[in-house]
């Protein structure tokens, strides 16, 4: 007589020794490797995007007449890429054969070091970006005249007593310095925000995994 699926199920498991649970070891092994690989991929893509973006912008800046801005951006971004590429060399040295806890802790330490270096750099590169923008537009030619010169002439005409340093209104120099100082202080925060947008999900997951692993070890 043909067996019903219910009896196949019952008898099958009665006779079977297949209900042996696998050993719970290295619970986070695959997870940590996947997470770190994902971060590495994102980091690499991010660096390539910066290189391509800075080269593209360099070309465009020459085409639209703001080459100083393009060069400033390109040089600043190149320094960022070089520093991060050097940092990523030590990331590749992290030993995967270590226990998953030590592997992920080593990665976490690397992330912390990377974030701290980039946060310090951000205090300098955001003011530099701004300075490059100002210089770029200052030397931009509009209707056959340099934009900076046109602004200076306009200010001299309307405010004859205005102070000048090397032909540039003192007011503008002070405003630019003030803005650069402000960006120096805000650079770290802007970087934190940028970090959260790009790597927020991965870093949150990393903290969760470490917290779980530490609880599991205790």
């Amino acid at each position, binding site marked *: 007589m043909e*067996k019903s*699926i*219910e009896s*196949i*199920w019952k*008898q*099958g*498991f009665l*006779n*079977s*020794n*297949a*209900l*042996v*649970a*696998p050993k*719970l070891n290295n*619970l986070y092994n*695959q997870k940590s490797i996947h997470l770190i690989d994902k971060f590495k991929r994102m980091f690499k893509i991010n660096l390539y995007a910066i290189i391509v973006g800075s080269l593209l912008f360099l070309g465009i800046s020459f085409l639209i007449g703001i080459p100083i801005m393009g060069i400033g951006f390109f040089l600043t971004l190149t320094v960022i890429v070089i520093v991060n590429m050097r940092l990523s060399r030590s990331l590749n040295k992290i030993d995967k054969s270590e226990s998953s806890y030590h592997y992920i802790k080593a990665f976490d330490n690397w992330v912390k070091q990377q974030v701290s270096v980039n946060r310090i750099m951000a205090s300098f590169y955001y003011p530099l970006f701004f300075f490059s923008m100002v210089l770029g537009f200052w030397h931009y030619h509009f209707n056959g005249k340099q934009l900076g010169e046109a602004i200076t002439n306009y200010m001299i005409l309307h405010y004859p007593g205005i102070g000048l340093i090397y032909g540039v209104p003192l007011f503008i120099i002070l405003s630019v310095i003030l803005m650069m100082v402000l960006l120096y202080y805000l650079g770290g925060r802007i970087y934190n925000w940028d970090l959260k947008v790009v790597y927020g999900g991965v870093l949150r997951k990393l903290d969760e995994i470490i917290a*779980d692993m530490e609880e*599991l070890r205790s």
Partner: protein
Amino acid sequence: MSNDFYAISIEPYSAIIIKICRAYTNSQEDFEDYYQEVCLQIWRTRNNFRGQSEWSTWVYRLALNVSLTMLKKMKNNSKYFTSEYLPSGLTENSQTFSDEALNHLYDAIKRLSEVDRGVILLYLEEKSYKEIAEITGTNPNNIGVRIKRIKERLKKILDGKVN
């Protein structure tokens, strides 16, 4: 995870976790990944259990949800080539159990839709319609009809009437 927690809260239900994970995987490696992930999720969410249902219901639900999520994740991520993409006959796991009829039944179950697999596993574990509906998040009024339909399909697959 303490040994106590595993021994008291997971081990008594390991059979159903194994049965569920087997229904969503085609290789020993995937099966072990799923099993570990289910145990981990049970441990991680243990404080969310409010006692409104049986602990076993909680475990069933988690085992199903984790299996479905992992299946979805693996399908979405083409980087991970898993046994799910292979016909069950080509994978090591098609002869998981010593009982040949059970192997055939599992192969047939794996050909059902993801939710239907969960429904029939719970039915075979003699869960009530209400519990099945609660665990799978389906309408309790339709469970009986749904199970009847799934059983008919399983029978057709086992009889070789469905390719």
